[in-house]
């Protein structure tokens, strides 16, 4: 039996969905995108063109839920299915779009540059616990206008795993799409075997900005999956009661599904989010708060009730350095998200309220992720009877360590951590340098990055990608891109 976590009673789920649907009717959704308003009006929503508000009747919502994709796969760059969005499958990717990196030398944040992002890509490729890549840093050594596409450009040179990404502008989305189609071998191939999912974020409460709404429509039309990232802040941009925050999340996500399905029925859209409790002393948005985790798990349950693929930002910390708080908060969210059966859990490596990525935290988080994946595989009998024959053979002897039964099962039954986790005797620990987890993480990052082997990508393809990215850079006044480590360009 797989252990699961349920946060809501069935009747409360029904009530949340009903109230979410009611919100779409009154007060309705603010839609700052002209095309979406047109689609909504054509479908029969009541659109106030002056106030930019669409009141969406339940009929349209139900229709959208009929056509939206129940499940889909993300493919790796070798064309193999790698991530299954749907059911209770659980996957992990690093948190996205960090503005800062925690520098292990100074233990302080700084602006990340190309070399940092490349190291992160190599590290994620080498971490078996992490299922997907993420464009999880914004590089400071290029013009901000290409911050989104530049990450994807770098990633496509280094990765094999599928990627969770997102656009910061409407025009750069097209550049990113061009890169993806170039790698996938055409638009039809990309739609049939998507290698990336785009995060699209409604603004709380109940607002679709022009940019994110256009990204959603463009993804739907191109057959590229979109991940809704609804983020009510309980007590600030949404009511403080957790159930009400989930109602708001439901309404925002339902409106996203409606817009996506109106753009193209059958579009792949993920029921996702990054809600948070609001810290009533500091006025911040703690990702490591238990109420944050509860909202995430509750909305996941709502999404599953509607039969949709799910996503959540979990496994992050608000700490500024790798300390006890950092480990505690990251572990809590990781475990709960796995138990809730979230299809894609984004957040590994992330700290300081989703604003700072740490490679060292990422390798520590990977151990927790490994344990969480073990947890949800549950306890199985493995044999019938479980082990009566073995017990009787052994009598009262204690040397199970020498039994073939142990050799056969220990890899499957136990999670075997990397040396980041210390399980030596005190003396052994002293002998190995008396290190903290953060110090051991520095070593592991170094080792994994050094062992990275690039995926064979033809120089022509690399050249095409560089051409696309360079054209975009020039458009925003940047004549040349920084060189990519490992690859020479003439």
């Amino acid at each position: 039996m797989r252990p699961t976590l349920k946060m809501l009673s069935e009747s409360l789920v029904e009530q949340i969905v009903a109230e979410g649907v009611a919100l779409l009717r009154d007060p309705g959704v603010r839609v700052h995108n002209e095309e979406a308003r047109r689609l909504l009006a054509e479908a029969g929503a009541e659109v106030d063109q002056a106030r930019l508000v669409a009141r969406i009747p339940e009929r349209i919502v139900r229709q959208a839920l009929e056509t939206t994709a129940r499940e889909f796969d993300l493919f790796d760059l070798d064309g193999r299915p790698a991530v299954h969005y749907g059911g209770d499958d659980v996957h992990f990717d690093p948190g996205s779009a960090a503005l800062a990196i925690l520098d292990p030398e100074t233990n302080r944040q700084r602006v990340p540059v190309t070399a940092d992002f490349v190291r992160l890509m190599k590290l994620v490729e080498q971490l078996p616990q992490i299922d997907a890549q993420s464009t999880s840093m914004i590089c400071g050594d290029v013009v901000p206008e290409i911050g989104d596409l530049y990450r994807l450009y770098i990633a496509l040179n280094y990765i094999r795993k599928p990627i969770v990404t997102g656009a910061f502008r409407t025009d750069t989305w097209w550049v990113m799409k061009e890169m993806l189609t170039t790698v996938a071998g055409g638009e039809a191939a990309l739609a049939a075997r998507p290698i990336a999912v785009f995060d699209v974020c409604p603004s709380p409460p109940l607002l679709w900005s022009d940019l994110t709404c256009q990204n959603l429509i463009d993804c739907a039309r191109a057959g590229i999956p979109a991940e809704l990232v609804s983020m009510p802040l309980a007590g600030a941009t949404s009511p403080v009661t957790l159930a009400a925050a989930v109602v708001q999340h439901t309404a925002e996500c339902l409106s996203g599904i409606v817009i996506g399905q109106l753009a193209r029925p059958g579009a792949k859209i993920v029921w996702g989010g990054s809600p948070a409790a609001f810290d009533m002393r500091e006025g911040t948005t703690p990702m490591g708060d238990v109420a944050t985790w509860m909202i995430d798990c509750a909305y996941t349950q709502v999404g599953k009730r509607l039969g949709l693929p799910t996503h959540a930002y979990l496994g992050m910390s608000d700490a500024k350095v790798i300390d006890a708080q950092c480990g505690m908060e990251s572990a809590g969210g990781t475990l709960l998200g796995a138990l809730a059966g979230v299809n894609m859990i984004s957040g590994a490596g992330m700290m300081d309220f989703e604003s700072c990525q740490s490679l060292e935290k990422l390798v520590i988080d990977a151990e927790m992720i490994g344990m969480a994946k073990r947890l949800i595989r549950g306890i199985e009998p493995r044999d019938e009877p479980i082990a009566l024959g073995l017990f009787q053979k052994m009598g009262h002897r204690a040397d199970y360590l020498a039994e073939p039964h142990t050799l056969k099962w220990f890899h499957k039954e136990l999670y075997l951590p990397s040396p980041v986790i210390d399980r030596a005797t005190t003396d052994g620990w002293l002998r190995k340098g008396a290190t903290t987890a953060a110090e051991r993480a520095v070593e592991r990052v170094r080792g994994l990055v050094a062992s990275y082997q690039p995926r064979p990508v033809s120089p022509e393809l690399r050249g095409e990608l560089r051409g696309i990215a360079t054209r975009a850079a020039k458009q925003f006044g940047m004549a040349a891109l920084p060189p990519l480590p490992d690859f020479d360009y003439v």
Partner: protein
Amino acid sequence: MSTELLARITASLVDGDPDATLAGTREAIAAGLEPLAIIEGGLVPGMRIVGDKYATGEYFLPNLIVSASGMKQAMALLEPELKARRQELKSAGTVVIGTVRGDIHEIGKSLVATMLAANGFEVHDLGVDVPVEAFVSRAKEAGANLVGLSALLTTTMHGQKDVVEALAKAGLRGRVKVMVGGAPVTKKWADEIGADGWAQDAVAAVDLATRLVAQA
């Protein structure tokens, strides 16, 4: 052909498949390979690889033990062959090993005993909760050149000191080296009680034993 067969024996140990080790060894004997060649060219390299993989973190305790068991079974097949040829495998040393009085922890001690046996030592395993005198008398009888003392508790590790002293009293310390191990046991403790060595795990214990026997 013989190279391929020896490589297969080595691989079977590395893969932890004692049945394959036995089958390979039988085949090699039937094919007329010299027992010493089978040991030196097939079995010993396999155990060395397993030990290396354990040291680098790729392998775990069950891998060590299962491979050692394959080695032991293969050696049981080869010993009559050696005898028939009036050959003798040079023993790596004779070890008396046990967990000291008052301590019933077996796992660490048995692990070291298994690894020593797999590496050519003649091992006399006295079990757990072993009285001081039993170590002394068996060391004498067996002509041991090494005694291994295990203790898992801070309350029982003093028993290691008692054995070191009893060996000295019996006049054996000149030819018998003592190595100690167990969770609370450190290099410092070994020095303090006048033991000759300490190792952090079963693989390191084999190296230590080899070194100590060379000095004995």
